């Protein structure tokens, strides 16, 4: 029986002495320190999610995809700053070079949105599916967190992680262009009007694609299904929109464009930077600007609502 050894440990600390010193078995120590409760748990889960998005605290392989997408999203910005610097030195010819440069604030959304979608497709299923796959949810929900808190912390974690890979290249472009200007003050004055649209577009992109990915991932423990679902949810509507446009032109069918996340984000980008959208269907759309902005906001609200509802009901 193991009881005899345990009984000895019950009462007094065991002590073993030797020439090298003493070993004390102090037994079980209670915890008298602070218990920070629900809010601290939510914050901790949020940061844990952000770290997981970048593979921090996981193995090296978990870092490959997020950092690859981050670098791929960043490189065009570095090139863009380089072109701007060269253009400055080329004088009048430079004006033309810069005008024709494919890398500017308005075009950047189109350049990086693919990497943002891929980031979502790789990370969102892992953020939610893993806990479902291995039945970890009962362990979460039996702690200081509520079901709602779990969903909110995870969604915010992904959205903020996406913001980082979107904002970083924007920031490189923005700061780089200020620094290569003839005087930094002039540069700042010139670039400053672009700041608000940059932030707004980053929020739309991270918000819509992030929440949509989480809403899809919430419904399957299978990673492959969620990944396929996320890509399909972005790709299929945009294909449908393009087909409808080529067949019917702008007509009653054009409302479908509001259900296509990539077209909606293309539209908000064009609205914010007063530029021409990439998608012909959006370009020729007779819908008012506000319809696209509303579609983006409603999309985010619905995706968050669906995800929360799922977690309020999921068996644990």
């Amino acid at each position, binding site marked *: 029986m193991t009881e005899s050894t345990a009984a000895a440990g019950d009462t007094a600390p065991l002590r073993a002495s030797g020439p090298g010193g003493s070993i004390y078995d102090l037994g*079980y120590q209670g*915890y008298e320190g602070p218990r920070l409760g*629900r809010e601290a748990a939510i914050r*901790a889960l949020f940061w844990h999610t952000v770290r997981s998005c970048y593979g921090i605290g996981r193995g090296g392989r978990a870092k490959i995809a997020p950092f690859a997408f981050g670098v791929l999203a960043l490189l065009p910005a570095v090139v863009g700053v380089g072109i701007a610097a060269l253009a400055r030195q080329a004088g009048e010819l430079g004006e033309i070079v810069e005008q024709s440069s494919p890398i500017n604030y308005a075009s950047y959304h189109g350049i990086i949105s693919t990497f943002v979608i891929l980031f979502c497709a790789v990370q969102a299923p892992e953020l939610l599916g893993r806990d479902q796959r*291995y039945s970890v949810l*009962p*362990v979460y*929900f*039996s*702690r200081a967190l509520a079901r709602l808190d779990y969903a909110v912390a995870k969604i915010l974690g992904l959205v903020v992680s996406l913001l980082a890979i979107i904002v970083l290249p924007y920031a490189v472009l923005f700061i780089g262009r200020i620094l290569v200007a003839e005087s930094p003050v002039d540069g700042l004055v010139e670039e400053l009007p672009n700041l608000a649209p940059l932030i707004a577009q980053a929020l739309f992109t991270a918000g819509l694609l992030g929440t949509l990915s989480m809403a899809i991932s919430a419904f399957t423990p299978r990673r492959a299904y969620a990944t396929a679902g996320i890509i399909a949810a972005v790709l299929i509507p945009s294909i449908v929109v393009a087909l409808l446009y080529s067949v019917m032109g702008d007509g009653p069918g054009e409302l479908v464009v509001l259900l296509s996340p990539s077209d909606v984000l293309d539209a908000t980008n064009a609205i914010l930077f007063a530029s021409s959208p990439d998608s012909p269907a959006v370009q020729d759309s007779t819908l008012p600007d506000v319809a696209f902005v509303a579609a983006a906001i409603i999309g985010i609200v619905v995706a968050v609502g669906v995800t929360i509802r799922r977690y309020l009901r999921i068996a644990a």
Partner: protein
Amino acid sequence: MPLISIDGLTKHYRGGVIALDALTLDIEPGIVGLVGANGAGKSTLIKLLLGLIEPTSGTARVMDLDVRTHGPAVRQFVGYMPEHDCLPPDASATDFVGHMARMSGLPRTAARERTAEVLRHVGLYEERYRAIGGYSTGMKQRVKLAQALVHDPRLLLLDEPTNGLDPAGRDEMLELVRRTGTEFGIAVMVASHLLGEIERVCDFLVAIDAGRLLRAAPLGTFTEHTGSLVVEVEDGRDLLAAALIRQGIEVIEDGRLILVELDGERTYDIVRDAVADLGLPLVRVEQRRHSLEDLFRDEVPAA
């Protein structure tokens, strides 16, 4: 104020299954065994106490707080070890338990210290830095216990903690549970369908069957009249049985074994003398509890 106070707690699942039927019960701190056959409602009761599922009607209060309205506040002080697997195989025990400490509201440094402490306590040492996927069942059960203990709860709810363990693993897990209750001063509720196992660690027993309370009483009153004695002899079983029957003792022959109805200390003496008189090679004499079903049949339900 009782630690757990349950009033008319009822849970109906979809499809008309009644998992818990108007259970009313007060539980005081200590090590409480929750026994019942599979499907009796043990897991349902534990999940209701944690607020993991919503009751159909009735209330459950833990530490005088309603678990439905004060879930997060109550659960800061409650540890739960689920019946089934709940561990991500790609995380290490240290990472998983540390993360769960923070999910209970512990600050970062405290979470790290408590994790080291509690993993040492359940007997995980160097392997705690390796991925859980490579652990044995026994080690996984220890990690499950560790995550339930890491925030130093006032109440520990264990759902079939010996599930899937070999006999040595069971002994160790039960010993850990016993120490948690006595040495650490944490109130423990252990659910099990094995009475013989649970009676080794707890001092109070709650028996439920088909969602109803059969009996809630200190362990002693539960088992004192229900024992029987198993006697095994190398040969001469029939001779012994006949001798015992002559002494007026009820005997059930079961293969090589003889089951003798226990009737106080006297029974031991009679068996000993009978074996000695016949000069039979005795293999063992062992006290055996009745099975859970027998226990329930014999006992008069009392609330």
